[in-house]
């Protein structure tokens, strides 16, 4: 369509132009005739007529304007586009440089924006996700009896995350399958793509072996077979029939959930003691705050009727809460800010390029102005050119982003990916953002050159025979852009530098136990084959024996969890100490505990600072022994000896005796502030549970024993799923995975910013040298040495850098305070970082001046002076 109408208007316009010319000429002729009739000679008559007529071109222009009043802007725009395209084509080096710079800037920004949008902003793929709330770890009995909750929500569904063993031929793998109440999928509002969802009949004893697949799982394990309904898979040694597949892009509750099975209603005593996660829809018209307030009241009533030894407060959170209030989100936003800096620097580069071009084209603009183009028209035309450049840059940038987003997402840490079930990709929101960016960039790049280009005095420019020189104002703008670039680069580098140093410090702090040559093997013993603690104990002990006998293994021990995941359980109730009033924990404070074997502290190299570790004195059935950590001892027994004291965490618990105090460990990873309390109880006393971790101290690199140790597990019980075997170092590092990832990105951007700023400086310096060729020629002719000339150029370049640095330092000093929360033991105004970055930029500045300086020194004064 575009082609035809262009053709038509082209043909049409020629015709219309011809007609207009003819009309005017007819008028002229008639006027000439009248003049002749009045007595002038033919020559005079014609001359008078023409003179009286005035400028025909201008008149035609006006008429054209009038005629196409409504379409004027379109025609002008089309003209501008054509003109811009031609102009860009005639200057390929310039165009390519500008476009590539923009591709880099726009592409990077779009990539990060897509990531941030997917992870943080895009709504979850459910119907009305903002009306849904969830609460964790609800006791089923309490939920069943809690009719008052109907005041707040109008639909409650529950689910239990389950880890099940998928058996296929020779392999056993663990998958996450959530057991959901029948109406839950329906509540979320997305119908299955294939087959059906659950109904009430599926939640009946005997019927519950049906399974609903996620899209990804369907692709991976059934190859996307459209006839998958009715096929069977084996989970936990039982066949499940596939009843449907959910659409692509749907996930619940985590991206790793592979499938869903029905949750049977709680009827038996033991079932009612289970805990479930609750999802509910708020009553229409009820806001979240009001709901929360109502729930707090109901909560108290609930606690009175159903007190639990480990009481969890019922809190309502929207589904989005984890995304909204998290550290990863902060880091992602920071990365977005960093990439915007890069974009600004890139735009400044392109603006400078355009400024230089505007200088070269001064004469061309003067001619256009003389031909009747108004100032507004000229500005529009230059803006169109920059718009075209930016548009190409954006197209290239989008392509780059498409690829980069997928590549980066694959490298992203699990913690980040778990924040959303949305699939990562460019959608209309990103496109809208990209278009907005384009407009902004075009303005930044094009406005100044456009304004300068249009402010010409035609006479002056056309009159001089010299090649066009930049006005002083123009040079000022160029220098201004370079100063801004340098400042931006400085701020970015300082920010990245501070974060990096903080990160390194976090890593360097001792975790409280010996991390090297340590590995953890997590085990899950299915209750069907290991129903009693005795059987589990038997398995663990046999496994320990076998593993301890392997070459390369120094020691083994057993615990429920190891840092950084700790024990996974904790209490948030009051700490009752015998003969003292109960000690309250702070709001939101949490007292985690870990169940460990006797030699745990020895193998982990955790010091026992007082008392003893667990040993044979602590018999099952006897008074429960606990070991508290140093922090806890200092908090609840300041200045006193806690050994022998009796503690419990609820009136229904028996009194426990403190037998030892252990050193603090970073139970939740290197960034754990060591402010946390922790206690341990004895595995021998508590009993061996189904979830445990075998801790292995190796002689050398634990990764080499990965296969061997797993083989031991399989030898003992071939049907046990391949448990995860991880060196402790890697586990600890993984908790810092998100900051490391974001930091990597930011460092990359800082590098790119540095390169772009250097290029910008180099460009301006080269140009300045070229412009001052005559002056340099004079200096050389008057006896200036090469070294002096180089120093001259370098000095001016350094002056520019210096101004940029000053601005940058001031800006950074003001801005880095926003990083405070993310900096670990490093001040936002850390002088070493500031000085270091300034030094780097100064060096880069000198390097960027080097080539132009040398070129200046090599100027042949004869040539330079002759070019006038």
């Amino acid at each position, binding site marked *: 369509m575009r082609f035809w109408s262009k053709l038509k208007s082209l043909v049409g316009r020629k015709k219309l132009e011809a*007609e207009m010319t*003819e*009309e*005017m000429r*007819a*008028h002229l*002729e*008639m*006027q000439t*005739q009248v003049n002749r009739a009045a007595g002038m000679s033919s020559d005079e008559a014609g001359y008078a007529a023409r003179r009286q*007529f*005035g400028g025909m071109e*201008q*008149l035609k*222009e*006006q*008429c*054209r*304007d*009038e*005629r*196409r*009043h*409504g379409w004027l802007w379109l025609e002008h725009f089309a003209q501008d586009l054509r003109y811009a395209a031609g102009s860009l084509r005639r200057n390929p080096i310039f165009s390519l440089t500008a476009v590539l710079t923009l591709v880099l800037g726009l592409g990077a920004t779009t990539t990060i924006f897509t990531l941030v949008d997917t992870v943080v902003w895009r709504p979850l793929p459910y119907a009305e996700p903002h009306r849904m709330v969830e609460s964790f770890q609800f006791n089923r009995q309490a939920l069943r009896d809690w009719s008052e909750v109907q005041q707040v929500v109008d639909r409650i569904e529950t689910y239990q995350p389950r880890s099940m063993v998928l058996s296929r031929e020779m392999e056993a793998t663990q998958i996450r399958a959530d057991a959901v109440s029948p109406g839950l999928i329906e509540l979320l509002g997305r119908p299955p793509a294939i087959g059906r969802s659950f109904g009430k009949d599926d939640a009946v004893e005997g019927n519950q072996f049906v399974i609903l697949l996620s899209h990804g799982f369907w692709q991976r394990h059934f190859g996307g077979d459209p006839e998958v309904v009715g096929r069977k898979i084996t989970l936990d040694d039982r066949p499940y029939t596939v009843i449907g597949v959910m659409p692509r892009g749907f996930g619940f509750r985590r991206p790793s959930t592979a499938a869903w099975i029905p949750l049977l209603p709680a009827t038996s005593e033991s079932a009612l003691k289970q805990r479930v996660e609750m999802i509910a829809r708020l009553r229409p018209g009820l806001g979240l705050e009001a709901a929360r307030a109502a729930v707090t009241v109901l909560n108290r009533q609930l606690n009175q009727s159903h007190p639990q030894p480990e009481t969890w407060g019922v809190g309502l959170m929207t589904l989005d809460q984890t995304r909204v209030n998290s550290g990863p989100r902060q880091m992602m936003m920071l990365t977005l800010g960093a990439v915007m800096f890069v974009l600004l620097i890139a735009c400044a580069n392109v603006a400078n390029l355009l400024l230089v071009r505007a200088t070269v084209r001064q004469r061309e603009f003067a001619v256009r102005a003389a031909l*009747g183009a*108004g100032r507004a028209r000229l500005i529009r035309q230059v803006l169109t050119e920059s718009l075209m450049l930016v548009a190409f840059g954006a197209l290239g940038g989008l392509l780059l982003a498409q690829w980069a987003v997928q590549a980066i997402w694959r490298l992203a840490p699990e913690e980040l990916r778990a924040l959303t079930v949305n699939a990562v990709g460019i959608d209309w929101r990103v496109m809208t953002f990209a278009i907005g960016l384009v407009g902004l960039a075009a303005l930044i790049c094009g406005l100044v050159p456009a304004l300068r280009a249009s402010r010409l005095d035609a006479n002056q420019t056309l009159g001089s025979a010299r090649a066009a020189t930049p006005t002083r104002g123009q040079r000022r703008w160029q220098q201004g852009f370079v100063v801004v670039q340098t400042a931006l680069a400085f701020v970015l580098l300082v920010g990245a530098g501070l974060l990096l140093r903080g990160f390194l410090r976090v890593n360097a702090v001792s975790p409280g136990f010996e991390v090297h040559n340590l590995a953890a093997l997590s085990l899950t013993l299915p209750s069907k084959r290991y129903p009693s603690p005795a059987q589990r104990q038997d398995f663990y002990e046999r496994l320990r024996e076998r593993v301890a006998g392997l070459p390369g293994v120094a020691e083994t021990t057993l615990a429920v969890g190891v840092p950084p995941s700790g024990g996974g359980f904790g209490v948030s109730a009051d700490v009752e100490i015998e003969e003292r009033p109960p000690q309250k924990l702070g709001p939101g404070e949490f007292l985690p505990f870990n169940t460990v074997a006797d030699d745990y502290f020895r193998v982990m190299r955790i010091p026992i600072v007082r008392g003893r570790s667990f040993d044979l004195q602590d018999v099952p059935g006897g008074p429960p022994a606990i070991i508290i950590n140093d922090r806890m001892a200092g908090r609840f027994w300041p200045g006193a000896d806690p050994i022998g004291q009796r503690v419990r965490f609820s009136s229904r618990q028996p009194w426990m005796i403190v037998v030892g105090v252990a050193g603090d460990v970073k139970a939740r990873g290197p960034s754990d502030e060591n402010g946390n309390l922790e206690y341990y109880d004895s595995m021998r006393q508590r009993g061996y549970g189904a979830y445990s971790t075998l801790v292995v101290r190796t002689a050398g690199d634990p990764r080499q024993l990965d296969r061997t140790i797993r083989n031991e597990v399989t030898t003992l019980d071939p049907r046990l799923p391949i448990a995860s075997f991880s060196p402790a170092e890697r586990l600890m590092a993984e908790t810092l995975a998100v900051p490391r990832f974001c930091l990597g990105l930011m460092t990359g951007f800082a590098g790119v910013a540095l390169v772009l700023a250097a290029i910008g400086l180099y460009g301006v310096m080269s140009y300045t040298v070229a412009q001052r060729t005559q002056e340099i020629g004079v200096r050389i002719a008057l006896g200036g040495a090469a070294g002096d000339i180089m120093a001259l150029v370098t000095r001016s370049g350094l002056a520019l850098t210096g101004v940029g640095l000053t601005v940058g330092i001031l800006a950074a000093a003001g801005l880095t305070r926003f990083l405070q929360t993310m900096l670990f033991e490093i001040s936002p105004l850390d002088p070493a970082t500031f000085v270091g970055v300034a030094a780097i930029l100064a060096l880069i500045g000198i390097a960027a001046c080097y080539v132009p300086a040398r070129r200046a020194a090599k100027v042949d004064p004869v040539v330079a002076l002759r070019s006038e």
Partner: protein
Amino acid sequence: MAKEKSDLLQGTLDLLVLKALQLEPMHGFGISVRIRQMSDEVLQVEQGSLYPALYRLEEQGWISAEWGTSDNNRRARFYKLTAAGRKQLSAETESWERLSAAINLVLKGT
């Protein structure tokens, strides 16, 4: 080339052009002659104003144009009033009369 005509002036010119075409269609040169004649040589419309006005009026649909032959066998573009143009002419005439009466009142008063 700034178009600095005030709206008042522009509207007046439009009115004159429409009036000039009331009797019969005419080409651009002829219109300027006719306006001069009708105004007793007082109003001399220059091409720089006339043609843009003609094109504007054509764009707005109050006059239409056709190619024809002039008195001296020259091909020229003839303009004529459309039905809407006639209506516009009477409406503008009326509002001009009201305006000038008002101005006269102001000038006469002390």
